[in-house]
């Protein structure tokens, strides 16, 4: 393969054009074919290559080998304009990886099916799972106090609060559209497909505010327990299945979310730990 079989050699000008990518497709392919077989021309190419180009190419190869690939959802998000450094940060959050998203999708699907199978008499399975999916996703992506990297995250210039908020947004963006679509398949009044967004969006700041004091895991457990209580309450005969997402209750969720935001803001202003809000 590497022995010289031809008497002809490419002249330096031709090789330079080849390296610069100036040749047309046919001539380029022909020169490449020749160089791959001709040791003399390969050596000549080596002399013509600038050290910078070699270094850049080598760095690119090392990058491809050493840099861990981004999970699929994040590669998709990169195409949609997510910045590369943010993608690297999000990649370390368990709830933004494919497996977690598939899990969330499956549990939502089953909940939707259960509501569908009941013919609309009970919405409880869907109303139980739909608002909790983003809450649990945020809790898993939080960067908990027991996070092994906590000590580093706290002292990094990027900022812990910013990291938590970026991850929270990412979880909401990745979970909410699927849940909205599944909500359309739920039998019952059409506004149900959007109404669960109220508790879903309210429970996230409540979780973040609680997590400040008790950590994200316990906070997620408390939020889930309370929300399950609200949904189970709707199973009582005297109350309709849509009770948890009716206007009066939505007002309560909004108030809870507002209180949670105030707690976070006060915490940001008074915490003596330098520069940390959440």
């Amino acid at each position: 393969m590497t022995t010289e079989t031809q008497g002809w050699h490419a002249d330096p000008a031709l090789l330079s054009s080849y390296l610069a990518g100036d040749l047309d497709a046919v001539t380029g392919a022909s020169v490449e074919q020749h160089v791959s077989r001709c040791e003399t021309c390969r050596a000549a190419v080596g002399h013509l290559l600038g050290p910078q180009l070699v270094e850049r190419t080598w760095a690119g190869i090392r990058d491809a080998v050493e840099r861990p690939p981004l999970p699929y959802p994040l590669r998709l998000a990169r195409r949609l304009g997510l910045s590369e450094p943010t993608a690297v940060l999000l990649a370390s959050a368990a709830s933004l990886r494919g497996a977690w998203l598939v899990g969330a999708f499956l549990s939502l699907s089953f909940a939707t099916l259960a509501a569908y199978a009941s013919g609309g008499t009970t919405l409880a399975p869907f109303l139980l799972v739909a608002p909790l999916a983003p809450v649990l996703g945020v809790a898993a992506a939080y960067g908990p106090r027991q996070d092994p990297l906590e000590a580093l995250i706290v002292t990094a210039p990027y900022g812990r609060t910013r990291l938590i908020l970026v991850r929270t947004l990412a979880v909401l963006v990745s979970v909410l559209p699927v849940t909205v679509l599944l909500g359309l398949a739920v039998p019952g009044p059409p506004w149900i497909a959007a109404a669960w967004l109220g508790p879903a969006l309210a429970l996230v700041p409540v979780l973040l505010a609680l997590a400040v004091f008790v950590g994200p895991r316990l906070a997620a457990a408390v939020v889930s327990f309370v929300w399950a209580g609200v949904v189970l309450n709707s199973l009582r005969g005297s109350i309709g299945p849509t009770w948890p997402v009716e206007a009066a209750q939505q007002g309560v969720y909004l108030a809870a979310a507002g209180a949670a935001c105030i707690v976070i803001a006060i915490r940001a202003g008074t915490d003596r730990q330098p520069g940390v809000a959440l």
Partner: protein
Amino acid sequence: MTTIELSAVGKTYGRTHALADVDLTFDRGVTGLLGPNGAGKTTLLRIVATSIAADSGEVRLLGRDPHRSHADVTAVRRELGYLPQELGYPSDMTAFGFIEYVAVLKEWNDRERRSQEVRRALEAVGLADQATVRISRLSGGQRRRVGLAQALLGDPQLVVLDEPTTGLDPAQRADLRRTLSTLGHRSTVLLSTHQTEDVAALCERVVVLAGGTVRFDGAVTDLVATAVGRVWLADEPGDDALISWRTGTGRHHVVGGTPPAGADPTEPTLEDAYLLMLGPDAERVHSPS
């Protein structure tokens, strides 16, 4: 230029005084914090690393007060490399992936420059050929070096290392010594340990902490000098010695107290001096930095 200034710094946890009225200043160079467990070493390092706030006193890092504003603390953190005492490593990340993650937290936003810096840090700790290995497959010493590599990202002006030598074998300690001596030319390196040989090998200056207070602050040789004339080799263990032990030659190494009959004075080691410093008869020494 003084890079770290601590004036009357105190920190309490419940009723425990982790630090009490500590006054210390640091400049470029490598300083070792030596002290028994609970001496306040980690608390001091966490305050310097902006991980926790002091309860009292004044802290100035690189000429700034980290509690004054978000901008001040962020400016300090941009020049900080910190290896916490206990750093859990996400086991599913590779060495490269982990350092890259920390590099993004340290605002290395340009992908190409970030890759180069991650490689430089891994090379500095001798792990360039382990870049693609998952952290769960690395040995304890290698993990500690991964932790060290992230602290070296960007050649920070403040390098705070909490027990960096844990889990390192003698050859790796020698490597660390080389890395730190280069770093000490342009940065302030503060490291904690409870092993005197680390201080002797790695540091120019030593601060002995005990019970949250500074017992000694000065050159390593000056600490050793405080024990001259107080260490002997004798056939008997001293009656009132601070500590004594039988050596390989069969004689007793006697530290402190009155010399037993037939005792020969011997050259004190840093460990002798450190023990004397901590012992009940150790004088509280304040030396200018």
